[in-house]
Protein backbone atom coordinates (compact mmCIF):
# COMPACT_ATOMS: atom_id res chain seq x y z
CA UNK A 1 0.00 0.00 0.00
CA UNK A 2 1.60 3.17 -1.11
CA UNK A 3 -1.11 5.83 -0.94
CA UNK A 4 0.36 8.68 1.10
CA UNK A 5 -1.34 10.25 4.08
CA UNK A 6 -1.86 13.91 3.34
CA UNK A 7 -0.86 17.11 5.13
CA UNK A 8 -3.10 20.06 4.36
CA UNK A 9 -2.23 23.57 5.54
CA UNK A 10 -5.34 25.70 6.05
CA UNK A 11 -5.46 29.43 5.38
CA UNK A 12 -8.19 31.50 7.00
CA UNK A 13 -9.00 34.28 4.59
CA UNK A 14 -10.89 37.49 5.37
CA UNK A 15 -11.46 39.97 2.56
CA UNK A 16 -8.67 38.49 0.47
CA UNK A 17 -6.08 38.47 3.25
CA UNK A 18 -4.75 35.61 5.32
CA UNK A 19 -5.65 36.18 8.96
CA UNK A 20 -4.55 34.47 12.18
CA UNK A 21 -1.14 35.88 11.33
CA UNK A 22 1.10 33.95 9.06
CA UNK A 23 4.72 34.62 9.89
CA UNK A 24 7.32 33.58 7.39
CA UNK A 25 10.44 35.63 7.74
CA UNK A 26 11.32 35.32 4.11
CA UNK A 27 8.18 36.28 2.29
CA UNK A 28 7.39 39.85 1.48
CA UNK A 29 3.70 39.92 2.27
CA UNK A 30 2.61 37.28 4.75
CA UNK A 31 -1.00 38.36 4.41
CA UNK A 32 -1.12 37.57 0.71
CA UNK A 33 -2.78 34.18 0.24
CA UNK A 34 -0.98 33.64 -3.07
CA UNK A 35 2.46 34.06 -1.53
CA UNK A 36 1.54 31.86 1.42
CA UNK A 37 0.09 29.14 -0.81
CA UNK A 38 3.23 29.16 -2.97
CA UNK A 39 5.35 28.77 0.12
CA UNK A 40 3.37 25.76 1.34
CA UNK A 41 3.51 24.23 -2.12
CA UNK A 42 7.33 24.52 -2.04
CA UNK A 43 7.38 22.93 1.41
CA UNK A 44 5.57 19.90 0.03
CA UNK A 45 1.95 20.48 1.10
CA UNK A 46 -0.26 17.80 -0.42
CA UNK A 47 -3.25 20.12 -0.79
CA UNK A 48 -4.20 23.58 0.41
CA UNK A 49 -7.48 24.60 2.00
CA UNK A 50 -8.81 28.15 2.02
CA UNK A 51 -11.45 29.02 4.54
CA UNK A 52 -13.43 32.17 3.89
CA UNK A 53 -14.14 33.12 7.49
CA UNK A 54 -16.65 35.89 6.97
CA UNK A 55 -18.07 34.88 3.59
CA UNK A 56 -20.08 37.94 2.71
CA UNK A 57 -20.97 38.42 -0.93
CA UNK A 58 -18.17 40.91 -1.38
CA UNK A 59 -15.74 38.49 0.28
CA UNK A 60 -16.77 35.67 -1.98
CA UNK A 61 -15.90 37.65 -5.08
CA UNK A 62 -12.54 38.45 -3.55
CA UNK A 63 -12.08 34.77 -2.78
CA UNK A 64 -12.75 33.87 -6.42
CA UNK A 65 -9.86 36.07 -7.47
CA UNK A 66 -7.61 34.54 -4.83
CA UNK A 67 -8.45 31.04 -6.05
CA UNK A 68 -7.92 32.05 -9.68
CA UNK A 69 -4.52 33.50 -8.91
CA UNK A 70 -3.38 30.57 -6.79
CA UNK A 71 -4.65 27.97 -9.27
CA UNK A 72 -2.59 29.60 -12.03
CA UNK A 73 0.63 29.08 -10.10
CA UNK A 74 0.19 26.22 -7.66
CA UNK A 75 -0.47 22.80 -9.18
CA UNK A 76 -1.78 20.79 -6.25
CA UNK A 77 -5.42 20.31 -5.18
CA UNK A 78 -7.17 23.34 -3.70
CA UNK A 79 -10.23 23.28 -1.45
CA UNK A 80 -12.37 26.30 -0.63
CA UNK A 81 -14.80 26.42 2.27
CA UNK A 82 -16.91 29.05 3.97
CA UNK A 83 -20.18 30.43 2.72
CA UNK A 84 -20.81 27.74 0.08
CA UNK A 85 -24.62 27.76 -0.05
CA UNK A 86 -25.76 27.22 -3.62
CA UNK A 87 -24.93 25.18 -6.69
CA UNK A 88 -23.88 28.44 -8.28
CA UNK A 89 -21.40 29.13 -5.45
CA UNK A 90 -19.84 25.74 -6.16
CA UNK A 91 -19.74 26.22 -9.91
CA UNK A 92 -18.02 29.58 -9.57
CA UNK A 93 -15.38 28.21 -7.19
CA UNK A 94 -14.65 25.21 -9.41
CA UNK A 95 -14.46 27.39 -12.50
CA UNK A 96 -12.02 29.67 -10.69
CA UNK A 97 -9.73 26.68 -10.18
CA UNK A 98 -10.80 25.07 -6.90
CA UNK A 99 -10.84 21.27 -6.99
CA UNK A 100 -13.13 20.78 -4.03
CA UNK A 101 -15.54 22.83 -1.97
CA UNK A 102 -16.29 22.47 1.71
CA UNK A 103 -19.96 22.58 2.69
CA UNK A 104 -20.86 23.06 6.33
CA UNK A 105 -23.90 25.01 7.58
CA UNK A 106 -25.72 24.75 4.26
CA UNK A 107 -25.63 20.94 4.56
CA UNK A 108 -27.18 21.05 8.01
CA UNK A 109 -29.84 23.46 6.84
CA UNK A 110 -30.65 21.40 3.77
CA UNK A 111 -29.01 17.96 3.40
CA UNK A 112 -30.50 17.64 -0.11
CA UNK A 113 -28.08 20.36 -1.18
CA UNK A 114 -25.20 17.90 -0.73
CA UNK A 115 -27.00 15.35 -2.87
CA UNK A 116 -27.70 17.88 -5.57
CA UNK A 117 -24.10 19.12 -5.52
CA UNK A 118 -22.62 15.62 -5.69
CA UNK A 119 -24.89 14.67 -8.58
CA UNK A 120 -24.01 17.80 -10.46
CA UNK A 121 -20.26 18.00 -9.88
CA UNK A 122 -19.29 14.53 -8.66
CA UNK A 123 -18.57 13.35 -5.13
CA UNK A 124 -14.84 13.89 -5.64
CA UNK A 125 -15.27 17.64 -5.22
CA UNK A 126 -17.76 17.66 -2.35
CA UNK A 127 -16.21 17.86 1.10
CA UNK A 128 -18.68 18.00 3.97
CA UNK A 129 -17.20 19.94 6.88
CA UNK A 130 -18.39 18.87 10.32
CA UNK A 131 -17.82 20.87 13.50
CA UNK A 132 -18.35 18.54 16.45
CA UNK A 133 -18.39 18.98 20.21
CA UNK A 134 -18.47 16.31 22.86
CA UNK A 135 -21.79 16.34 24.68
CA UNK A 136 -21.48 13.21 26.84
CA UNK A 137 -20.18 13.27 30.40
CA UNK A 138 -17.26 11.10 31.50
CA UNK A 139 -19.64 8.44 32.84
CA UNK A 140 -21.60 8.19 29.60
CA UNK A 141 -20.67 6.59 26.29
CA UNK A 142 -18.86 9.05 24.02
CA UNK A 143 -21.26 11.22 22.07
CA UNK A 144 -20.52 14.18 19.84
CA UNK A 145 -23.01 16.67 18.46
CA UNK A 146 -22.57 18.89 15.43
CA UNK A 147 -22.61 22.65 15.81
CA UNK A 148 -22.95 25.37 13.21
CA UNK A 149 -22.11 29.07 13.02
CA UNK A 150 -18.54 28.61 14.15
CA UNK A 151 -19.51 26.29 16.97
CA UNK A 152 -22.08 28.58 18.55
CA UNK A 153 -25.27 26.87 17.42
CA UNK A 154 -26.15 23.37 18.64
CA UNK A 155 -28.17 21.21 16.26
CA UNK A 156 -29.00 18.11 18.28
CA UNK A 157 -27.52 15.98 15.47
CA UNK A 158 -25.15 13.14 16.35
CA UNK A 159 -21.80 13.69 14.61
CA UNK A 160 -21.15 10.07 13.62
CA UNK A 161 -24.66 9.50 12.28
CA UNK A 162 -24.40 12.77 10.40
CA UNK A 163 -21.09 11.79 8.80
CA UNK A 164 -22.59 8.49 7.64
CA UNK A 165 -25.65 10.26 6.28
CA UNK A 166 -23.55 12.80 4.38
CA UNK A 167 -21.61 9.98 2.71
CA UNK A 168 -24.84 8.35 1.53
CA UNK A 169 -25.83 11.78 0.20
CA UNK A 170 -22.66 11.91 -1.88
CA UNK A 171 -19.92 13.54 0.22
CA UNK A 172 -16.57 12.41 -1.18
CA UNK A 173 -14.63 13.40 1.90
CA UNK A 174 -15.28 14.53 5.48
CA UNK A 175 -13.42 17.45 7.07
CA UNK A 176 -13.87 16.85 10.79
CA UNK A 177 -13.12 19.62 13.26
CA UNK A 178 -13.29 19.20 17.01
CA UNK A 179 -14.70 22.41 18.48
CA UNK A 180 -13.38 21.32 21.88
CA UNK A 181 -9.84 21.10 20.57
CA UNK A 182 -9.77 23.87 17.97
CA UNK A 183 -7.29 26.54 19.03
CA UNK A 184 -6.09 24.64 22.11
CA UNK A 185 -2.88 23.23 20.58
CA UNK A 186 -3.42 20.09 22.67
CA UNK A 187 -3.83 17.64 19.77
CA UNK A 188 -6.78 16.26 17.80
CA UNK A 189 -9.80 14.73 19.53
CA UNK A 190 -8.55 11.24 18.67
CA UNK A 191 -11.64 9.39 19.90
CA UNK A 192 -13.89 11.53 17.72
CA UNK A 193 -11.57 11.20 14.73
CA UNK A 194 -11.34 7.44 15.06
CA UNK A 195 -15.08 7.04 15.59
CA UNK A 196 -15.91 8.96 12.41
CA UNK A 197 -13.07 7.57 10.33
CA UNK A 198 -13.99 3.98 11.17
CA UNK A 199 -17.67 4.66 10.47
CA UNK A 200 -17.40 5.93 6.89
CA UNK A 201 -15.92 4.63 3.63
CA UNK A 202 -14.67 8.00 2.37
CA UNK A 203 -11.46 9.74 3.48
CA UNK A 204 -11.56 11.77 6.71
CA UNK A 205 -9.45 14.87 7.32
CA UNK A 206 -8.71 15.49 11.00
CA UNK A 207 -8.75 19.12 12.10
CA UNK A 208 -8.59 21.21 15.26
CA UNK A 209 -5.99 21.24 17.99
CA UNK A 210 -2.60 20.60 16.38
CA UNK A 211 0.13 22.04 18.60
CA UNK A 212 3.12 19.84 17.83
CA UNK A 213 4.32 17.50 15.11
CA UNK A 214 3.47 14.35 17.06
CA UNK A 215 -0.20 15.43 17.04
CA UNK A 216 -0.25 14.98 13.25
CA UNK A 217 1.19 11.47 13.49
CA UNK A 218 -1.28 10.60 16.25
CA UNK A 219 -4.18 11.80 14.10
CA UNK A 220 -3.19 9.26 11.46
CA UNK A 221 -2.06 6.38 13.64
CA UNK A 222 -4.48 6.63 16.54
CA UNK A 223 -7.27 8.65 14.94
CA UNK A 224 -7.22 6.62 11.68
CA UNK A 225 -7.45 9.85 9.68
CA UNK A 226 -6.52 9.82 6.00
CA UNK A 227 -5.30 13.42 6.06
CA UNK A 228 -4.45 16.03 8.68
CA UNK A 229 -5.20 19.73 8.49
CA UNK A 230 -3.39 22.39 10.49
CA UNK A 231 -2.95 26.13 10.46
CA UNK A 232 -0.94 27.80 13.19
CA UNK A 233 1.76 25.13 13.57
CA UNK A 234 2.85 25.99 10.02
CA UNK A 235 1.90 29.68 9.88
CA UNK A 236 4.24 30.79 12.61
CA UNK A 237 7.19 29.03 11.08
CA UNK A 238 7.46 26.71 14.09
CA UNK A 239 7.57 23.82 11.68
CA UNK A 240 7.57 23.33 7.94
CA UNK A 241 5.35 20.85 6.14
CA UNK A 242 8.56 19.02 5.21
CA UNK A 243 9.52 18.58 8.88
CA UNK A 244 6.08 17.26 9.64
CA UNK A 245 6.42 14.70 6.86
CA UNK A 246 9.88 13.61 8.01
CA UNK A 247 8.50 13.07 11.47
CA UNK A 248 5.55 11.07 10.16
CA UNK A 249 7.81 9.01 7.89
CA UNK A 250 10.11 8.20 10.82
CA UNK A 251 7.12 6.58 12.50
CA UNK A 252 6.27 4.44 9.53
CA UNK A 253 3.60 6.58 7.86
CA UNK A 254 3.62 6.77 4.04
CA UNK A 255 4.08 10.38 2.98
CA UNK A 256 5.00 12.18 -0.22
CA UNK A 257 8.51 13.47 0.38
Amino acid sequence: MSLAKRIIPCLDVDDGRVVKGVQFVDIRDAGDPIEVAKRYDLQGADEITFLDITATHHDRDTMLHVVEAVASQVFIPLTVGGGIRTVDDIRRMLNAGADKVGINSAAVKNPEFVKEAAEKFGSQCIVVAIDAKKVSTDEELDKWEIFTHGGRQPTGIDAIEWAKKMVTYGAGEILLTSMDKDGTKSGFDLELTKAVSDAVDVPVIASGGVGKLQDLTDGIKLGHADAVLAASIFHFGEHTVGEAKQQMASQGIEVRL
Partner: protein
Amino acid sequence: MRRIAVIDYGMGNLRSVSKALETVSKQSSIKITADPQVIQAASHIVFPGVGAIRDCMLELKNLELIEVITQVAREKPFLGICLGMQALLSRSEENSGIDTLNIFPGNVKHFDITTDKMGQRLKVPHMGWNKVKQTYKHPLWNNIEQDSRFYFVHSYFASPDSDDVIAGTSDYPDSFAAALYRDNIFAAQFHPEKSQRSGLQLLENFVNWDGQS
Protein backbone atom coordinates in the same frame (compact mmCIF):
# COMPACT_ATOMS: atom_id res chain seq x y z
CA MET B 1 3.87 26.27 -32.76
CA ARG B 2 1.84 23.66 -30.91
CA ARG B 3 -1.88 24.07 -31.03
CA ILE B 4 -3.39 22.24 -28.09
CA ALA B 5 -7.11 21.61 -27.88
CA VAL B 6 -8.52 20.86 -24.43
CA ILE B 7 -11.88 19.22 -25.09
CA ASP B 8 -14.64 20.95 -23.14
CA TYR B 9 -17.80 18.90 -22.72
CA GLY B 10 -18.98 20.43 -19.46
CA MET B 11 -17.42 17.80 -17.22
CA GLY B 12 -15.42 19.66 -14.66
CA ASN B 13 -13.13 22.59 -14.54
CA LEU B 14 -10.63 22.81 -17.34
CA ARG B 15 -8.89 25.90 -16.11
CA SER B 16 -6.30 23.97 -14.10
CA VAL B 17 -5.41 21.81 -17.10
CA SER B 18 -5.00 24.77 -19.40
CA LYS B 19 -3.04 26.79 -16.81
CA ALA B 20 -0.70 23.87 -16.26
CA LEU B 21 -0.19 23.49 -20.03
CA GLU B 22 0.48 27.23 -20.30
CA THR B 23 3.06 26.95 -17.55
CA VAL B 24 5.05 24.23 -19.31
CA SER B 25 4.67 25.56 -22.83
CA LYS B 26 4.63 29.30 -23.10
CA GLN B 27 4.74 29.18 -26.90
CA SER B 28 1.74 26.92 -27.39
CA SER B 29 -1.71 28.09 -28.24
CA ILE B 30 -4.15 26.44 -25.85
CA LYS B 31 -7.85 26.36 -26.64
CA ILE B 32 -10.57 25.06 -24.37
CA THR B 33 -13.12 24.00 -26.95
CA ALA B 34 -16.09 21.89 -27.96
CA ASP B 35 -15.79 22.86 -31.62
CA PRO B 36 -14.95 19.85 -33.85
CA GLN B 37 -13.15 22.11 -36.32
CA VAL B 38 -10.86 23.51 -33.66
CA ILE B 39 -10.23 20.00 -32.36
CA GLN B 40 -9.39 18.78 -35.85
CA ALA B 41 -7.06 21.70 -36.49
CA ALA B 42 -5.10 21.13 -33.28
CA SER B 43 -1.72 19.41 -33.13
CA HIS B 44 -2.29 17.91 -29.66
CA ILE B 45 -5.50 16.84 -27.94
CA VAL B 46 -6.21 16.79 -24.21
CA PHE B 47 -9.35 14.94 -23.12
CA PRO B 48 -9.91 15.62 -19.40
CA GLY B 49 -12.94 15.07 -17.21
CA VAL B 50 -14.28 14.56 -13.73
CA GLY B 51 -17.70 13.39 -12.60
CA ALA B 52 -19.89 10.47 -13.58
CA ILE B 53 -19.48 8.41 -16.77
CA ARG B 54 -23.17 8.53 -17.77
CA ASP B 55 -23.14 12.33 -17.87
CA CYS B 56 -19.82 12.22 -19.68
CA MET B 57 -21.12 10.02 -22.50
CA LEU B 58 -24.39 11.96 -22.68
CA GLU B 59 -22.58 15.26 -23.03
CA LEU B 60 -20.25 13.85 -25.69
CA LYS B 61 -23.31 12.68 -27.64
CA ASN B 62 -25.21 15.94 -27.18
CA LEU B 63 -22.26 17.99 -28.33
CA GLU B 64 -21.64 15.58 -31.25
CA LEU B 65 -18.07 15.04 -30.18
CA ILE B 66 -17.82 11.26 -30.32
CA GLU B 67 -16.90 11.07 -33.98
CA VAL B 68 -14.23 13.73 -33.84
CA ILE B 69 -12.71 12.30 -30.66
CA THR B 70 -12.56 8.82 -32.18
CA GLN B 71 -10.94 10.31 -35.25
CA VAL B 72 -8.27 12.46 -33.57
CA ALA B 73 -7.50 9.61 -31.17
CA ARG B 74 -6.20 7.74 -34.23
CA GLU B 75 -4.16 10.63 -35.61
CA LYS B 76 -2.72 13.08 -33.11
CA PRO B 77 -0.88 13.02 -29.80
CA PHE B 78 -3.81 12.46 -27.47
CA LEU B 79 -3.87 12.63 -23.66
CA GLY B 80 -6.84 11.32 -21.66
CA ILE B 81 -7.05 12.33 -18.01
CA CYS B 82 -9.10 10.66 -15.24
CA LEU B 83 -12.65 10.29 -16.58
CA GLY B 84 -11.16 11.11 -19.99
CA MET B 85 -9.13 7.91 -19.60
CA GLN B 86 -12.02 5.79 -18.37
CA ALA B 87 -14.17 6.89 -21.32
CA LEU B 88 -11.60 5.33 -23.68
CA LEU B 89 -12.36 1.80 -22.46
CA SER B 90 -15.26 -0.28 -23.83
CA ARG B 91 -17.61 -0.27 -20.88
CA SER B 92 -17.89 1.11 -17.35
CA GLU B 93 -19.60 -0.48 -14.35
CA GLU B 94 -20.56 2.99 -13.12
CA ASN B 95 -24.23 4.11 -13.28
CA SER B 96 -25.36 0.46 -13.66
CA GLY B 97 -23.24 -0.04 -16.78
CA ILE B 98 -22.47 2.41 -19.58
CA ASP B 99 -20.97 1.73 -23.01
CA THR B 100 -17.97 3.93 -23.65
CA LEU B 101 -15.71 4.78 -26.61
CA ASN B 102 -14.05 1.35 -27.02
CA ILE B 103 -10.66 2.75 -27.98
CA PHE B 104 -8.98 0.45 -25.44
CA PRO B 105 -10.87 -2.88 -25.22
CA GLY B 106 -11.65 -3.52 -21.57
CA ASN B 107 -13.78 -2.49 -18.61
CA VAL B 108 -13.89 0.14 -15.91
CA LYS B 109 -14.53 -1.36 -12.47
CA HIS B 110 -15.29 -0.15 -8.97
CA PHE B 111 -12.76 -0.52 -6.14
CA ASP B 112 -13.86 -3.06 -3.57
CA ILE B 113 -14.13 -1.74 -0.05
CA THR B 114 -11.40 -3.61 1.75
CA THR B 115 -8.70 -3.30 4.39
CA ASP B 116 -4.95 -2.88 4.09
CA LYS B 117 -2.29 -5.08 5.69
CA MET B 118 -2.61 -3.16 8.97
CA GLY B 119 -6.32 -3.93 9.07
CA GLN B 120 -7.26 -0.31 8.43
CA ARG B 121 -10.18 0.28 6.11
CA LEU B 122 -9.24 1.46 2.62
CA LYS B 123 -11.34 4.42 1.69
CA VAL B 124 -13.11 4.94 -1.63
CA PRO B 125 -12.62 7.27 -3.49
CA HIS B 126 -8.94 6.46 -3.79
CA MET B 127 -7.88 10.01 -3.03
CA GLY B 128 -4.40 11.44 -2.69
CA TRP B 129 -0.81 10.94 -3.78
CA ASN B 130 0.10 7.44 -4.84
CA LYS B 131 3.23 5.99 -6.39
CA VAL B 132 3.16 5.18 -10.08
CA LYS B 133 5.37 2.38 -11.32
CA GLN B 134 6.40 2.97 -14.91
CA THR B 135 5.97 -0.42 -16.55
CA TYR B 136 6.74 0.73 -20.10
CA LYS B 137 9.46 3.16 -21.14
CA HIS B 138 7.14 5.73 -22.69
CA PRO B 139 8.31 9.21 -23.84
CA LEU B 140 5.74 10.77 -21.47
CA TRP B 141 7.70 9.41 -18.49
CA ASN B 142 10.90 11.22 -19.61
CA ASN B 143 12.67 12.91 -16.68
CA ILE B 144 10.15 11.52 -14.19
CA GLU B 145 11.65 9.24 -11.59
CA GLN B 146 10.40 5.69 -11.25
CA ASP B 147 7.75 5.43 -8.48
CA SER B 148 7.05 9.17 -8.41
CA ARG B 149 3.81 10.14 -6.71
CA PHE B 150 0.85 11.57 -8.61
CA TYR B 151 -2.50 12.89 -7.37
CA PHE B 152 -5.47 10.56 -7.80
CA VAL B 153 -9.15 10.94 -7.05
CA HIS B 154 -11.42 8.20 -8.38
CA SER B 155 -13.67 5.33 -7.33
CA TYR B 156 -13.44 3.37 -10.60
CA PHE B 157 -10.36 2.09 -12.40
CA ALA B 158 -9.53 0.86 -15.90
CA SER B 159 -9.07 -2.85 -16.46
CA PRO B 160 -7.93 -3.27 -20.09
CA ASP B 161 -8.26 -6.68 -21.75
CA SER B 162 -4.58 -6.64 -22.68
CA ASP B 163 -1.73 -5.83 -20.27
CA ASP B 164 0.28 -4.69 -23.28
CA VAL B 165 -1.39 -1.27 -23.19
CA ILE B 166 -0.43 -0.53 -19.57
CA ALA B 167 2.21 2.20 -19.23
CA GLY B 168 2.14 2.43 -15.43
CA THR B 169 0.53 0.88 -12.38
CA SER B 170 -0.38 1.84 -8.81
CA ASP B 171 -1.50 -0.24 -5.84
CA TYR B 172 -4.78 0.18 -3.95
CA PRO B 173 -4.32 -2.37 -2.41
CA ASP B 174 -3.99 -4.46 -5.59
CA SER B 175 -2.21 -3.28 -8.68
CA PHE B 176 -4.33 -1.35 -11.20
CA ALA B 177 -3.63 0.52 -14.45
CA ALA B 178 -2.62 4.09 -13.61
CA ALA B 179 -1.70 4.87 -17.24
CA LEU B 180 -2.46 3.36 -20.64
CA TYR B 181 -0.81 3.88 -24.03
CA ARG B 182 -1.05 2.80 -27.62
CA ASP B 183 0.51 4.51 -30.63
CA ASN B 184 -0.38 8.21 -30.32
CA ILE B 185 -2.58 7.84 -27.22
CA PHE B 186 -1.56 8.17 -23.59
CA ALA B 187 -4.11 8.14 -20.78
CA ALA B 188 -3.64 8.76 -17.07
CA GLN B 189 -5.97 7.94 -14.22
CA PHE B 190 -4.18 10.53 -12.07
CA HIS B 191 -4.32 14.29 -12.54
CA PRO B 192 -1.01 15.57 -13.96
CA GLU B 193 -2.33 19.13 -13.64
CA LYS B 194 -2.58 18.61 -9.87
CA SER B 195 0.57 16.55 -9.40
CA GLN B 196 3.05 19.36 -8.93
CA ARG B 197 6.50 18.85 -10.45
CA SER B 198 6.04 15.32 -11.79
CA GLY B 199 2.69 16.25 -13.28
CA LEU B 200 4.03 19.36 -15.00
CA GLN B 201 6.91 17.30 -16.38
CA LEU B 202 4.46 14.81 -17.86
CA LEU B 203 2.48 17.63 -19.47
CA GLU B 204 5.68 19.14 -20.85
CA ASN B 205 6.61 15.74 -22.27
CA PHE B 206 3.17 15.53 -23.86
CA VAL B 207 3.43 18.95 -25.48
CA ASN B 208 6.80 17.92 -26.97
CA TRP B 209 5.61 14.46 -27.97
CA ASP B 210 5.46 13.44 -31.62
CA GLY B 211 2.93 10.68 -30.92
CA GLN B 212 5.34 7.74 -31.25
CA SER B 213 5.14 5.15 -28.48
